[in-house]
């Protein structure tokens, strides 16, 4: 399989098939990010299209040899955040306003420790859908980190690069995301001991 860098060089030499290959290879990842972020198929498709349109325009200045995937995801993530800014009402305003600000790096010690969910919950069939519900209620910036890490498999370093945040903030966001999820699952399943 051709590397992304080879495909980009081929595209710049006028090989139309090369850009097609890039689009086909990365549409699922970008769509997944956009869909998990917006939870709306139409918006996700628009954001995916817009991402590749911008990639097409910017490819000629892509630095050869640098990793393509983080660069691509950075474009998509920025578009997602712009989209979010344009949305007047967000359902997570409440969660966000509980003393947390975007991208504020906190020492890990200040992030509260997690406690395990009781075994009975893990055995329930509702857990899977509860998890998805809980995920939808995560603050957006945590959701981005979670998607990039857990479903797209990017490393902490890549995520820091994609979102333009310090490495430690990536760790803090992931940790807080887990806490939020646990809290939401807790509410979903009633008081947990």
């Amino acid at each position, binding site marked *: 399989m051709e590397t992304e860098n080879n495909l980009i060089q081929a595209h710049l030499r006028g090989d139309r098939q090369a850009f097609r290959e890039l689009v086909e290879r990365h549409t699922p990842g970008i769509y997944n990010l956009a869909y998990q972020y917006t939870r709306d198929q139409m918006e996700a498709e628009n954001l995916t299209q817009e991402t590749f349109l*911008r990639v*097409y325009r910017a490819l000629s200045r892509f630095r050869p040899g640098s990793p393509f995937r983080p660069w691509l995801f950075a474009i998509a993530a920025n578009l997602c955040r712009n989209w979010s800014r344009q949305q007047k009402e967000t359902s997570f305003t409440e969660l966000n306003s509980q003393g947390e600000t975007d991208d504020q790096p906190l020492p890990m010690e200040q992030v509260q420790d997690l406690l395990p969910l009781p075994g009975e919950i893990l055995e329930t069939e509702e857990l899977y859908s509860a998890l998805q519900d809980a995920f939808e209620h995560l603050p957006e910036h945590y959701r981005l980190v979670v998607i990039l890490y857990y479903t797209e498999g990017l490393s902490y370093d890549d995520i820091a690069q994609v979102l333009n945040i310090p490495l430690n903030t990536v760790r803090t966001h992931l940790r807080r995301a887990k806490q939020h999820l646990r809290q939401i699952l807790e509410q979903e399943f009633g008081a947990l001991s």
Partner: protein
Amino acid sequence: MNLIENISCAAARTQLDDYIAGNILPGDRRSVGTHLRSCSACREIFEAHWQMDRLLMLLPRTFPRETLANEILVRVDRADLRQRWIALAGSVVWGVLILWVLYSTWLGLQEGPLAEVINMVMNEPALLWRFPLEVIGAILENLPIFEFASIVILVSVGVWLLRRYLPGNMGPAPRSMREAT
């Protein structure tokens, strides 16, 4: 001698995520592991992290419609075509402007002092090798500077426009990822 690195609960807890993710140096990994085996409080927190980690791995990946990639390519092609038309239209306008300035310059040359210099040289070509510097000086001195500058500016702008909007080379370069959007 059995060396067991003893680390504090706080130190172990800050490294739990990296420990689970495998983003940890072998020495630190051993210290955290040793600590977890001997400290039930930290072990409980580790289990919670590990549990959430497994849960998050269950998050489903959503796949796009099969035709989406094609639709993207169609949209990119359309945008590309639009850019080509813009470039073509821009080139035509610029070409006409350049021709117009060239024409008016040529008209000006028919009667101006430069025309006299050229006529003189045409009538007596020997001037060219006998007094080359004087001839060039006379031409430069009488060159209609406004028209000449206009031609240079128009040609430069035209070349810049073509380079900017030629397919595959559209838009200014992003210096960083943020700028790329």
